[in-house]
């Protein structure tokens, strides 16, 4: 049987001949304009390095105080967790779980999965879960919302600034660094290349 070598555009199902773009080129679907591939320099190495950096940063970003306030003589520090815990104490289970998932669990899983995948690709170690991890990572991308959390934090600071004294903790610096790292991670990960390597490792 001759091997059919076509790819289908994931957004409009147009059958296409796969292209092998060079660095700096972008491949768009000719019909709907979907960005099919955008090769990155040293995609695997960079993803590997960035996910290690992210894995280190996620601990201070989670555990150390982000912002503290001083109001009428009382002071209080807020971490990523304290919002979740306070919401739980007020019996707002739904929101507490939602905030926990989108600001703590999914960003963490995102980084762990990138680390696992890029480690096995970097060291050429086949793993039977690789495809599952990759699929999970693609599904979860949207639900890790660190950058939205950052904006929420800015709005909260603006609201508090008039009535209380704000101070920024070390956790905030780690959080901002983590934000930058996850942004770079998302752009360095070339999905088409990763899937091709995963496929090659299986054989």
């Amino acid at each position, binding site marked *: 049987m001759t091997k059919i070598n076509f790819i289908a555009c994931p*957004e*409009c*199902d*147009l059958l296409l001949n796969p292209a092998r773009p060079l660095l700096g080129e972008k491949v768009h679907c000719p*019909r*709907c*304009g*979907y960005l099919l591939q955008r090769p990155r320099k040293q995609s695997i190495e960079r993803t590997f390095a960035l996910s290690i950096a992210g894995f280190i940063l996620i601990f201070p970003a989670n555990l150390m105080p982000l*912002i*503290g*306030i001083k*109001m*009428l003589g*009382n002071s*209080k520090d*807020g971490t990523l967790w*304290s*919002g*979740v*815990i*306070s*919401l739980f104490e*007020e019996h*707002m289970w*739904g*929101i*507490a779980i*939602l*905030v926990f998932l*989108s*600001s703590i669990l999914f960003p963490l899983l995102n980084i762990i999965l990138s680390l696992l995948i890029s480690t096995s690709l970097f060291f050429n170690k086949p793993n039977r879960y690789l495809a599952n991890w990759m699929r999970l990572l693609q599904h979860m991308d*949207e*639900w890790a*919302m660190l950058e*939205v*959390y950052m*904006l*929420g*934090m*800015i*709005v*909260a600071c*603006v*609201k*508090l600034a*008039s*009535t209380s004294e704000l101070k920024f903790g070390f956790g905030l610096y780690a959080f901002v660094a983590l934000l930058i790292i996850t942004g770079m991670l998302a752009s360095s990960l070339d999905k088409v290349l990763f899937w091709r390597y995963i496929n090659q490792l299986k054989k």
Partner: protein
Amino acid sequence: MTITSLGVGEPHTIVGGILSLIHAGMVPIAMLVLVASILVPLLKLLGISLLLLNVHYRWQGHAKKWTVLYRIIAFVGRWSMLDIFMISILVALVDMGRVAQVIAGPAATAFAAVVVLTMFAAKNFDPRLIWDNQR
């Protein structure tokens, strides 16, 4: 959410929050909240309905524009979580018993449900349907 300050409790709505930001002179931030928490969810629901009508009645032409609409809806959804995160931060920070306290209200759950459900709705819409109907 309810904000208690010096023993006086006052429920705050999203619209009220935007108005008080405008009164405080924070117009850009007020616009940000307005866009993220009112305009985006509303326009998103409208957009998804239009996409479904398009697919159901097999409207012809402009398939690329419809695909762009789908992409905007899918991209923009997560930013509405801004308000939920803001509440979670305020609830954690402003917690000084009777002096000053922020308590999340019932609308917070409803709003979170809107955001999550519309995100699922956008995820479950298959843009290929737009192209399948074109002759």
